[in-house]
């Protein structure tokens, strides 16, 4: 088994009256196929912190639950699991407040939790369901009138990819920042519009690289999305496209520089 468990995202053939079980840290997904019906169950696995994997098991092993959801689709038994990014922006709260001094540039590797999407394959692939693999908090970014609802995540700011543990349930987002202004750039919170990002698969999961040149609090600065796969690995392939394709977003909506951008 590979170290990351990335093979968990390979297509799976589910025979009739059998179950497929995807197990991730803290979450398992069960899919059962009976004729043209697909029965789906998502269960929290609080105690499980091991590798991610997928197995075909007998129906007798499926967990009893009233939460099974039923879908109807006449396609073949091959299902395509894909990692997708959350449906709302993610506000990342670094474990330490960092200040990028004027004239400096840096790169951060941010770990983003992915959601599990199951689709049918064949002539007309259809999305069956999506399920978050990690529990994120709800948070508000901006002032109470014009801000936006986001997912909240406490995270580490990694300066090198080696310090990021490979995992099948997280995608790495390279964020390159240049401070081309006369003022300090404080990282207290970073709001990433993940709905604009795609996921690529290499030895681990990656998102598009982000690049921003900060020109000062009173200057409009754009967060630019690099649409090619990040160049940290060879032979990366796209596995899921952005929910809302975009070329970038305004940096004012990105950094929680309290003294400049909010009234708090």
């Amino acid at each position, binding site marked *: 088994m590979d170290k990351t468990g990335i093979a968990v995202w390979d297509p799976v053939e589910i025979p009739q009256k059998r179950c497929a079980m995807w197990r991730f840290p803290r979450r398992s997904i069960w899919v059962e196929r009976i004729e043209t019906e697909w029965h789906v169950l998502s269960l929290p696995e609080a105690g499980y912190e091991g590798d991610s994997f997928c197995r075909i098991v007998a129906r007798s092993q499926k967990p009893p639950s009233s939460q099974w959801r039923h879908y109807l689709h006449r396609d073949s038994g091959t299902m395509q699991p894909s990692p997708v990014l959350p449906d709302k922006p993610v506000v990342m709260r670094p474990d330490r407040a960092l200040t990028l001094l004027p004239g400096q540039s840096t790169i951060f590797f941010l770990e983003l939790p992915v959601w599990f999407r199951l689709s049918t394959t064949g002539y007309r692939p259809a999305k069956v369901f999506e399920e978050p693999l990690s529990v994120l*908090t*709800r948070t508000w970014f901006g002032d*109470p*009138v014009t801000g936006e609802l986001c997912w909240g995540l406490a995270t580490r700011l990694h300066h090198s990819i080696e310090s990021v543990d490979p995992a099948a349930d997280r995608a790495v987002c390279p964020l390159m920042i240049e401070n081309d202004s006369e003022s300090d750039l404080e990282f207290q919170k970073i709001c990433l519009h993940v709905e604009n990002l795609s996921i690529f698969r290499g030895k681990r999961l990656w998102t598009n690289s982000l690049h921003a040149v900060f020109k000062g609090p009173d200057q409009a600065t754009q967060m630019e999305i690099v649409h090619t796969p990040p160049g940290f690995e060879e032979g990366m392939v796209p596995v899921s496209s952005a929910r809302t394709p975009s070329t970038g977003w305004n940096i004012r909506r990105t950094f929680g520089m309290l003294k400049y951008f909010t009234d708090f």
Partner: protein
Amino acid sequence: MFFNQIRTWVDSLSPDVLTRGLRVAVTVVLGLVLVRLLAVVTQRYIMKKSNRQRQMIVRKVISYSGFFLVLMAVLGELGVKLTALLGAAGIVGIAVGFASQTSVSNIISGLFLISEKPFAIGDVLRVGATTGIIQSIDLLSIKLRTFDNLFVRIPNEKILSSEVTNITRFPIRRMDIQFQIDYEQDLSHVHTILAAVASANPWSLDEPEPVIMFTEFKESGIEVMLGLWFAKSDFIDLKNSIMRDISARFAAEGVRFAHPRRMVSMTSPAVETPRRRARKAS
């Protein structure tokens, strides 16, 4: 038989009356169809991106103006002198205006409300003791549907002169939950428990941060206020879950809610002392 009667009646009419009747019928049918078409096209295509309230106002303006024009055209076709009629209408209008001051006041209030836009269709509004979702905002009144599915009509004049709360104007709100705990409780422990309960609740926002305050020393216990921010659509989910969570967590941690208490101290009957006996005797 019936058709014969109609035919006889039509034959008895002069060609002039017949032509006029036909023109009136065509004016009415075409006019009403055109007005309806214009209102629908404006609402669906021209004002597609406007909010529902503005669409409704424009549709009503087009409909009422259109019906008025059709009426004028029909009256003109029937030979009614419009100048005299409008003059008479002016006099009648003044008389009706005096007689219907409340309605006029409502209309003017409605115009103010429409221009001020303190709320829109779909907002949740609280006026006095009534809370409901706005169904329509008209010139005379606004119509609400309450959460127990009652239809409430509130005159615009009342809206303008009383305090109105638009509950869903802003995307997030704070829910304040107040309760009292026993005087014997460790307040730091209670604070820690409430912070943990708020942080574990999936509907409560972690930013803006929850507010925990020990607000007052009451007769039976210490009053506590837990304020949780939430997205406006999550009100019921948060309310139910947080009440359940607080209750369960307090029970598990042995924290007691305050109940009304009276402390009664029993003392033995007063002993009869010589001094007390002398005071009684005097």
